[in-house]
């Protein structure tokens, strides 16, 4: 990942985080809230791999926690792990698959929701599992609606990597 790519990704996630905390948190459809920052993170992770995904997740979480005066590190922790996992998926199984962004967003929405729930629970804070379970499906649908335009925009900004740039732990025979 070049410095220019890093700056583009940082700017993109910063804007996504600001839009998330200022605008999208007001949108509540059937208990679902669209998570633009998560969708943008998935796009960056799929296009730039695990290290970039984890780093991007960390800084996106830091911006969200700072902007909302929340517990610092909470969102960063969950987004770091999410970015890493999606990045690994993009480097290996999910490469060149058209459905990869949608599948990733669907899975990471569930993981993120329950990840945040788990952190709240471990900190001894209120952890309403029922409310989270109720909101997961509508949130996932809203995130999937955002995926196509967000992924197209990120793909336009961050050119997909060449095949040689991918990790090659999985060796192809023949």
């Amino acid at each position, binding site marked *: 990942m070049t410095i220019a790519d890093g700056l583009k990704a940082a700017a993109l996630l910063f804007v996504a985080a*600001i*839009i998330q*905390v*200022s*605008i*999208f*948190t*007001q949108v*509540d459809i059937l208990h679902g*809230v669209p998570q633009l920052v998560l969708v943008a993170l998935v796009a960056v992770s799929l296009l730039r791999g*695990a*290290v970039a995904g*984890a*780093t991007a*997740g*960390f800084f996106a*979480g*830091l*911006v969200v*926690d*700072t*902007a*909302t*005066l*929340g*517990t*610092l*590190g*909470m969102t*960063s*922790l969950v987004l*770091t*792990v999410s970015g*890493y996992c999606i990045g690994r998926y993009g480097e290996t199984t999910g490469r060149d698959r058209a459905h990869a962004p949608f599948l990733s967003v669907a899975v990471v929405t569930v993981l993120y929701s329950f990840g*945040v729930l788990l*952190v*709240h629970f471990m*900190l001894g*804070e*209120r952890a*309403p599992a029922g*409310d*989270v379970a109720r*909101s997961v499906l509508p949130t996932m649908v809203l995130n999937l609606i955002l995926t196509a335009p967000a992924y197209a925009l990120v793909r336009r900004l961050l050119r997909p990597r060449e095949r040689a740039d991918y*990790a*090659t*732990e999985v*060796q192809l025979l*023949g």
Partner: protein
Amino acid sequence: MAPPNRSARVAVLGSSLQRSKPNPSPSKQRSAMVRRAVLAILVVVALGLLTISFRSPTSGVLHDAQGYGASALRPFQVAAERVARPFRDAYGYVSSLTTAKSELKKYKQMARDYRAEALRNAAAVQQNGELQKLMNFESGPRYPQDYRAVNTAVVSFPSGPFAQQLEIDAGRNQGLRYNTPVVSADGLVGRVTQLAPNTSVVTLLTDPESAVPARDLKTKVSGLIRHGQGGTLTLDRVPKTAIVNKGDWIVTRGTIERRYPDEYPYGIPIGRVISVGTSDIASFLTVQVQPLAQLGSLDAVAALIPTKRARSHP
């Protein structure tokens, strides 16, 4: 010798030669190590931040840095909110049109009732003032005359099942302190629980941790306003022998004991009773209250700063 229909490729795949275990090259091993090291470092840093932030949520270097960071991000949030406002207003306009006709009839009736009530109240207030003068009645700060309102915009809104809070565009520099009451034009919203130089976080009445001493304006019954089901509130700790009627107004109770001063002055409207229930096994009445403030769609609120030193009620 291989049969004629057998290709060389099949012959190779089908051979019984033992393959050596593929050895990843040193560069690949290094790449995997770097990747895992980056993840480990970021997770450790996040856990460190989480620990420090959780242990000292209202003070410390990290909290101050977060406050300055929030102040730096505030212009971006305000800009984003302003860009979105026309769309939100347009949606609100269209949505309100669908219910406008039915609501007009209801509000006309309510306006007639309130006009009659306001006349009675005006007479009672005048009489109350005269009686207080006669009795040299001492009282604590009164709402709203003993408070200065810091009017401010809401820059971030409650979201999801965890956050029953909102962020406002005023902080320590504007005179806000921890537990400063925050109201909207309709009624009580909550209190300040996180403070930064130019922003602060308000915990809403609907937060599970929130508890506000309140009383029924008509029957003088006291209780504790807690969160309820579906965005409503509950007037808790009301004895079964007490009388609370549907439609009664609930306001803040204020300080009644000098040793335990209340954060909220007497008389801030909270909501209206929408149902009263009881059961044989319950110790208290179940009083459901509809909050007056539209907690999910606030654009602006006012933080109440006392203009004189608080005195306790007699």
